[in-house]
C-alpha cells in the first residue's frame, strides 16, 4: 500500500504550474485530453443502491468492472461477467481471482483501477457534505452521461463562466456587479473559487426556492480530484440555499463520460420544492453541457497547431490542463505515488458551512 507520509508534499520545484508564462502557455496548448489515462485511483463506479446480487457493468477507460454483492452484502468487483464466454485474458488490474480492489464510501461503490497492491482507503477523495455511510434519499441521486471525454467535462465544470450562458435559464445569467476567480492547487487537486457580487438570481431558486430578490451574492467552489476524475461543486447563495453537488466524471471510454451524481439538498427545508427539484436540474444542465462538449470532443482528439485563446477567467481550466498532463507524464515515468492527501477533510478549503 502507498503511504501518504512516504511521499513528501509537492515542493515548489515539482510544481508543474511554473512561473514561466511561456512554458505554462505551451503546456496549456499541448492539451490532449483523450490521451490522458490516469491509474492508481479510486473511481466512483456506481451508487451503492444500484449494486445488488445481479452483476451490473461499469467501465473505466473501456476496462470492464462487474459489480455485485456477495451473500454477506459485500461488493465484489470483477473483470469478467461469470457468463461471458468471450472474456479475454485477465489484466494487470485485478488479483488472481480476477477481482479489483473495491470499497464503499459516501454512498458509492469505488473501484480501484491500477496496481491492486497500491489500493488504499486513504486515496478516496474527501467529500465533506456526503454522509460517509451513504443513505441519501434516491431523489437526490441520479445518472447522466456526457458524449465527450471526461477531462473536457471537468474543464467545462471548473470554468463556471459557461454556466451564465448555456445554463442561464437554470442558474442565472452573466449580469452582476463583479466577478473574481481564485485558484488553488496541489499535485492531486485543483480548487476554483468564484465570487460574484449582485448576480442575477438563479431562475430555479426564484421559481422553486422561494427567493424573491433580483440579485444574490454567490460563492461557488469547484474542487477536482484529478486522478479520480471526480469533482465537488459547492455553492453558497445569499439569499438562497447552499448547493452541495458531488460530480464524478468517470471516463467509461476516452470519449464518453458517466456521471452518477449526488446532490445533497438535505440542508433545504422539507417544505421547500427546491429540495426536490434542484437534483433533477442535472437532467437539463447535463444536456446543455453535452450540446457543447460533444462537438468539442473530437476537436481535441488530435494534436492541433492552432492555439486555444484564453481569457483571465480561464485560469482554473488552464491550470487543470497542466496539472492533468503533469500527472499523466509522471505516471508514464512509472511514478504513481500520491504526493498530496486527497482524503483529508477539505471543508476549510471549500468553505463548507455545516448545517
Amino acid at each position, binding site marked *: 500500500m502507498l503511504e501518504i507520509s512516504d511521499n513528501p508534499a509537492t515542493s515548489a520545484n515539482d510544481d508543474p504550474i511554473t512561473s514561466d508564462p511561456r512554458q505554462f502557455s505551451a503546456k496549456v496548448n499541448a492539451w490532449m485530453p483523450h490521451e490522458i489515462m490516469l491509474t492508481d485511483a479510486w473511481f466512483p463506479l*456506481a*451508487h451503492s443502491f*444500484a449494486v445488488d446480487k445481479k452483476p*451490473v*457493468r461499469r*467501465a473505466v477507460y*473501456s476496462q*470492464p468492472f462487474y459489480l455485485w454483492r456477495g451473500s454477506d452484502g459485500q461488493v465484489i468487483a470483477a473483470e469478467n*461477467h461469470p*457468463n*461471458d*464466454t*468471450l472474456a*479475454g485474458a485477465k489484466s494487470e488490474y485485478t488479483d488472481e481471482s480476477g477481482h479489483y480492489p473495491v470499497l464503499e464510501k459516501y454512498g458509492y461503490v469505488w473501484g480501484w483501477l491500477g496496481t491492486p497492491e497500491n489500493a488504499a482507503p486513504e486515496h478516496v477523495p474527501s467529500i465533506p457534505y456526503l454522509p460517509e455511510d451513504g443513505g441519501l434519499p434516491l431523489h437526490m441521486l*441520479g*445518472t*447522466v*452521461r456526457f*458524449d465527450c471525454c471526461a477531462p473536457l467535462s471537468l474543464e467545462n465544470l471548473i470554468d463556471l463562466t459557461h454556466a451564465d450562458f448555456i445554463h442561464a435559464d437554470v442558474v442565472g445569467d452573466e449580469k452582476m456587479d463583479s466577478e473574481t476567480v481564485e485558484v488553488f492547487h496541489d499535485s492531486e487537486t485543483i480548487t476554483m473559487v468564484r465570487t460574484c457580487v449582485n448576480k442575477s438570481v438563479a431562475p430555479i431558486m426564484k421559481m422553486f426556492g422561494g427567493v424573491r430578490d433580483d440579485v444574490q451574492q454567490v460563492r461557488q467552489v469547484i474542487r477536482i480530484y484529478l486522478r479520480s476524475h471526480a469533482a465537488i461543486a459547492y455553492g453558497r447563495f445569499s439569499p438562497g440555499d447552499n448547493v452541495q453537488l458531488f460530480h464524478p466524471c468517470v471516463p*467509461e*471510454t*476516452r*470519449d*464518453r463520460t*458517466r456521471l*452518477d451524481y449526488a446532490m445533497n439538498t438535505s440542508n433545504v427545508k422539507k417544505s421547500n420544492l427546491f429540495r426536490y427539484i434542484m437534483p433533477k436540474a442535472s*437532467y437539463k444542465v*447535463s*444536456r446543455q453541457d*453535452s450540446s457543447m462538449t*460533444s*462537438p468539442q*470532443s*473530437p476537436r481535441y*482528439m*488530435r494534436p492541433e497547431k492552432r492555439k486555444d485563446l484564453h481569457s483571465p477567467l480561464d485560469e482554473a481550466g488552464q491550470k487543470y490542463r497542466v496539472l492533468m498532463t503533469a500527472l499523466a507524464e509522471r505516471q508514464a515515468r512509472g511514478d504513481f505515488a500520491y504526493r498530496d492527501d486527497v482524503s483529508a477533510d477539505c471543508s476549510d478549503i471549500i468553505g463548507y458551512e455545516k448545517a
Partner: protein
Amino acid sequence: MSEAIWWAVARSEEISAEKPFNVDIGDQPIVLWRETDGTVRALEDRCPHRRAPLSLGCILGSGAIQCGYHGWTFDGESGQLVDIPNLKSERKYPPVYKAKPFGVHESAGFVRICLDAKAPPPADDGYALPLSGTSTVALEHGQYIAALFDDPSLLISIKGVRFSPYLLAELCEQEGQLVMERSCQWASPHWPAPFTSDFPISLRIATDPVTGESDLTLRDDEFNLLLQATLAPVPGARQVTQVRWRAMLSPERPGLAAKAMGLGAPLRVHDHIDGAALRVLKPSASIHADDLREKIAARTDQQDEVA
C-alpha cells in the same frame, strides 16, 4: 487495391450455374459463376477479345463461360481461352489468350475473392448463418466502416433494438481485430439513454482491420446471445460499398422484447444512408481505428519479416 486480400463479394445463394454474376472490388470488375459440380469460378469481367463484360454471356454445360459478344469461351479455373466457336477448329490457343483469373474461396455462405489467384486460401469460417441479404450503399468503404463504429443506426436496424451513443468499450485490438462494444436499449418506451444507469443489451462489433468484415454479437446483460451477424462491406466502383450479410437469431432468447425479435426480419441492412444525419455524426470510436490498423499492420509486417 492490395492483391492478397480476400473480399466477401457475394453470398453463396447469389452464385449459380445458370447466370453469370457481376461484382467489383474497387474498380476491378469480376464475373462469378458456378460450374456444374458447384465450384465457384471468378474471372475478370472483361473479355480479352473486345473487352465486353463476360457477365453478359452464358455458362456452358462444360462449366466454361462464353462471352455473349463473339462466343469466346474461357476455362474458369485458369482463364484460358478454350474455344472460338466460329473458327470450327480444334486448335489450341497460345497461353496469352486468357481472361484474368482470381482466387476463389467459399465458406460459411460467403464467396470470397482474392485478386491474387495464387494467394493461399483463407481459413474456413464454419457454418452459414441462415438469414442473409445484400445492400449496395452510396458511401465509400472506409466511411461505411467509420459510420458502423460511430453510429450503427445509420447502416443497420435490429428488430426492437435502439443503439445508444454510449460504449462499454471503445475500439481496441483483440487478436488482430478491431473490437468495440456499444450499450443498447429495447425500442419500447424507456428512460432516455443519457440518463440511463444500466442498459439491458449490448452490441459487440469485431471488425477485420483491412476488409471491414464485421462480426456483430447482440447479447443481453446476462450474456445470453440474442443475435449474431456478419457484415461484409466491399468497396465497389464509384466508391459505393457493396454489403453482403448473414445473420442468425438465437433460438433461446429470454424476455419478452428478445422473443419479439422473432417477429419479422430481425436484421435490416440499409440501402440508403441519411446524408443529413451522417454529415453531423461526430467522429468518436472511429477516430482510433487508423492508429490501431497501423499498429496491426506493422506487427504483421514484422512477423512476415521474421518468417
